[in-house]
Structures are given as structure tokens and as C-alpha cells.
């Protein structure tokens, strides 16, 4: 065999095959994909017109409550096999005024008193929505408090139960700034199925002192239905 190669003036079989391997390697390395910007056509066939959509949406169950409020729960962060989205029912406390839903179909209420006005929002976000500690620190920032280490932020919350689901309650009061009254946030975080429910009340600290009982009534009236299984909040104390 080597005579054959020598007649052609080539190195022998070993050299040739080795050189071939090196060349193939170099060519493969050199042939990197260059597809940063692409344009392509997707035919509108009967199959694709049915299916040209993102990963399948879970079955959504929505229903109204006696006051007409309705929440649309978002999908979980996992793109595959998402649980059904929960629906939420509640009873609006007496002196609260329900506002039209906005954005992710949040429920919102306002209330007023001699000491000012405040608001309550209900919102459902997919997955853990950043986790309880991150949200607690974000609220701390909103009332002018310094953020806490993750574990400490966690432990600062009180464990509660909402419709049999475990949750956390956070009560944060900021400091007075010049002639502005101190702001207060009382918020609940409830993990339900693959979503997280946030119930957040904000307003002047003294006004919220009066409205805290109404918030408790709202939390007690909450009914969460339609998700697969309850989930424990992460790192719950």
C-alpha cells in the first residue's frame, strides 16, 4: 500500500490519514454556524394554522365571584406540562371600593379615611415571581427601609394560611420623611399551584392601622381553586 502512495509522490498511508484527520478537524472548527439573523417562511397549511403557536397553554379555569371580580392566573415558569391556572374568589370589605382590573387582570381596591387614602391590589404571577425574600426587600425599599439578607428577610415574615394554603404575611412601616406621614405596606404572599398570589395593602401607617382588620377579612374570604396541587413556599421558616 505504501508503494502505491510513493508512486503518486504522496506520504505514506499513516501520514495521509493523519493529515486528513487534522484537516477535517480544522475544517470543522472553521465551519461555525453563522445564523445571528435569519429569515424563513413558515407555510400556512391546515396543520400549521392550527399549531403555529407557542407551547400549549394550560386549560384555564376562570369564574367570577359575587362582586364580579375575576383574576386570570399566569402560567408557571416551566414551559412543559404546566398546571391549570387558579381562579380566585373573594368578598370585598364594606368600605372598600373595587377598581377595574388592569395589566395582568389584577383586582384592586381603594379606601379612604381621615388620615388619607390607601389601596389594595391582588395579583397572580407565574412561578415564584422572584421568591418571597426578593419581594420583601423590594417592598422594604418602597417604604424607605434598608434591604435585609435573604434569610433574615424571610424570617421577618409571619406564616399564615389562606384557604388552606401556606403563605407569608409581611408588615413594613417606614419612617416619616419631613412632613410626609410614614408609609406602611401589609402584604401576603401565597404559593398556589404553579403561581404566586400577592395581596398588598399600601398607604399611610396610621390609616392602615384601622384597615388591617378589613385586610384580614379579605384574606379569610379568599378561595383559591383550579390548580393541581398546593406547593410550599420556598425556604419557609
Amino acid at each position, binding site marked *: 500500500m*505504501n508503494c502505491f502512495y510513493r508512486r503518486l509522490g504522496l*506520504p*505514506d498511508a*499513516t*501520514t495521509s490519514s*493523519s*493529515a486528513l*484527520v*487534522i484537516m*477535517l*478537524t480544522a475544517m*470543522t*472548527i472553521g*465551519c*461555525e*454556524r453563522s445564523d*445571528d*439573523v*435569519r*429569515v*424563513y*417562511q*413558515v*407555510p*400556512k397549511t391546515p*396543520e*400549521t394554522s392550527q*399549531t*403555529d403557536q*407557542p*407551547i*400549549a*397553554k*394550560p*386549560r384555564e379555569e376562570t369564574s367570577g365571584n359575587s362582586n364580579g371580580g375575576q383574576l386570570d392566573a*399566569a*402560567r408557571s415558569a*416551566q*414551559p*412543559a*406540562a*404546566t398546571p391549570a391556572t387558579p381562579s380566585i374568589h373573594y368578598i370585598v370589605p364594606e368600605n372598600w371600593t373595587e377598581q377595574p382590573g*388592569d*395589566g*395582568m387582570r*389584577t383586582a384592586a381596591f381603594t379606601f379612604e379615611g381621615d388620615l388619607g387614602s390607601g389601596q389594595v*391590589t391582588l*395579583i397572580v*404571577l*407565574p*412561578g*415564584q*415571581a*422572584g421568591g418571597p425574600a*426578593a419581594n420583601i426587600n423590594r417592598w422594604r*425599599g*418602597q417604604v424607605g427601609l434598608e434591604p435585609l439578607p435573604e434569610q433574615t428577610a424571610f424570617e421577618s415574615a409571619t406564616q399564615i394560611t389562606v384557604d388552606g394554603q401556606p403563605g407569608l404575611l409581611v408588615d413594613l412601616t417606614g419612617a416619616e420623611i419631613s412632613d410626609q406621614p410614614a408609609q406602611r405596606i401589609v402584604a401576603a404572599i401565597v404559593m398556589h399551584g404553579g403561581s404566586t398570589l*400577592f395581596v398588598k395593602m399600601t398607604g399611610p401607617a396610621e390609616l392602615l392601622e384601622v384597615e388591617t382588620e378589613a385586610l384580614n377579612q379579605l384574606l379569610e374570604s379568599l378561595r383559591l381553586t383550579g390548580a*393541581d396541587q398546593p406547593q410550599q413556599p*420556598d425556604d419557609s421558616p
Partner: protein
Amino acid sequence: MRPLAENRYLRPIAWLASLKLAVVLFGLSIVLVFLGTLAQVDQGIWAVMDQYFRTLIAQVELNLLLPTGWVGRATVPFPGGWLLGGLLMINLAAAMIVRFRWSWRKSGLLLIHLGLAVLLLGELVTGLYAEEAQMTIPEGGSSNFAEDIREVELALVDRSGRLADEHHVVSQRLLRRAASNNRAIEDAQLPVRVEVLRFMSNSILTSATMSESWINPATRGLGRRFLAVQRDPVAAADTDQTIDMPAAYVELIDRQSGRALGTYLVTTWLSNRDMTDTIEAGGKRYELSLRFRRAYKPYALHAVQIDNDHYVGTNIPRNFSTRVRVVDRLRGQDRQFVIRMNQPLRYAGDTYYQSQMAVDESTTTFQVVRNPGWLLPYIACIVMTVGMIIQFAGSFWRFSARAGEP
């Protein structure tokens, strides 16, 4: 036969055949594997594969070995997997050229080393060209694309065509580069010029009205209602096994008219919920979204029946299977198959593995793999096995022949 090293043209490469070089390269490979294993604690496996192994130069974070308080996020360069593998291949080839003396007695050794080279080449081909994605289909529904949840793309879709939709997509790599270099993306294939103000590898989405203290960069569209906030990438050790949900703020300018279209929030949080913005550029309307990277197929899979059986009275899975109907107008195929655990469907270069399904059998998810180099490891193993048989058989034959001598 004269040794090849006596060939003056090959003498310069004799040093590449050094055994000392091989030992050094193996040692560096062991260190690289060790560092990559440590890095997986905080980073996802795919991030580590890209950062340490499928690259020429790896950027090793010093906090893998030293306290973070001392070194922060500082990195040092280290030979990456492709560089070490490439040099090992060259060392192997050079050794064969310089030292190897061809004879039938050495054919076993030749085959073993050739098999090793094919194995290394196979990993390179896999690293460069393999595609892995997911396809989720509801029972009774169908799909004609798979999504790679490790990567996103900015998509502008023109649905005005009667026969087809036109997808203009920008890769995640380009989006990141544009964000870090502060350079606009301008390409003749795009109807707009894209300035990436911010790219977040992972994010949470919140209502803009809930976050009064945050500045909202978006001036149009869904970004006025939602706010994306950066969070750390998901770690491999994340017990929840969640995935990264990227987001970006992009400023768009019509390439044809030069008109500013506004700053939009794009994120997989919204695209996964079928929420997209619509923009107008060049006289056409486009759906704008940041979605997981898609690979459209020339055929569609219909999920006819999904079975999720457990052993009676337990939660132990007994059988996950999906009966699918493959409709391929290009090849004139309309056939049914059953995809089960350990029984994938191989069709048109794609392999569909049963990956997950909903507990209530409402949806099924397939892992879709396309790897042009899938045969190379099998070929490599066969070649090495034959080489070892030849080598050991030859040695045994010679030994038994000598043993018979008086």
C-alpha cells in the same frame, strides 16, 4: 521502511509528537473537568458546557477555589475543551506521523488511536451542530416546531402572506453582544434597526403599577403595563429545576423611514402567554416577541392519545406513551406512531423522546434531538474494539508461538 522523521519536511512537527506534551494536555484536561464540575454548583450545566468545554479559552471564576470576598467575580483564562481536545488530536496525529512504523503487527494500535480520534471528532461535531429542543402538544392538538428553552430569539413575524408567514429572527448571541457593546443591530434582513438597551438572562415580571420606585424604560406596548426585573440565572443545584426567563428592553427604528417606533419590553414571560406587541415598519405589520429559539419542521405532529399510567395504588410511573400522527406533505406521509419511554421516534433526522406529560394527560412533551454526528461515537467504539481485538489477539498469538519453542 525509513522512519518518517528523517523526512526533512516533517522534522519541524516532531515536537508536536512529544509524549511530555500529551501528559501535560491530559493533566490540563483533568483540571478543566474538575473546575467545570465545581462551576455547576452555581451555573446551569449548559452554561458550564459553553463556558468551559465548548470553547477555545475558558474563563474560570476564581471564586471556585478562593473565597468570594477575596476575589469577587474575577476570572482567569484557561485552555478550554476545544483547545485541549484539538491539541490532543494534533499530538496524536503528529505522533503517528513521526514515530509510527506501519506494519500489520501495529494495525491494532493504529485502529485504537484512529477510533479515539473519531470519538474526539464526534464530540466536536456534536458541540457545533447538535440541536436539542422540546415540543409540547396538547392531546388532540398538533405542533410543527420545537423550542430550545436554553436560548431565546427576538422575532418579528409578518403574517400578511396568503400562503406563509415570514419570520425575522435575531439570535440571543447578537442581542447580548449588542447590549454589552452598546451597538445597534442593523441588518438588511430586518425591517427595523434594533438597539438593545438591556438584556436580562433571567428575570421576574411584575406589574408596572406595583413598582412605582422603578424606572420603566418602555415607552410603548405591553412594557407600559409590565416591568421586568433582573434576577440571577438559575443554578444547576436549584432544587426547583426552574428555567431562565430572559427579558430585554429594545428600541426599534424603522429602517425604511428612519422613524423611531419606541422602546418595547420583550420577554418569554409574555410570549409564553401569547402576549405580543404589534409594530409597523416598512409598510408592514409585525408581531414582536422574545421567544425560545424555534426550529420549525416541514411536517406536523398530532397528539392522538396520551397515556400516563401508574402502577395501581401508587404514583410510580408504569407507562408514559403518546400515540402521534405524523403529517408530512413534503414526503407524502400520514402515519401513526407510538412514542414511549425508551422507544423514541426517529423521523427525518429528528429523534423524539418521550420526556414529560401532564398528570391529567392533557399535554405531552417530547425532547427533540437532531445530531448529525450521532453515529460517530458508535463508529469510534467499534473501531477501537476491533483494534483491541487485533492487538491482543496478535500479542497472544506471538506469545503462544514463543511458548511452543524449545
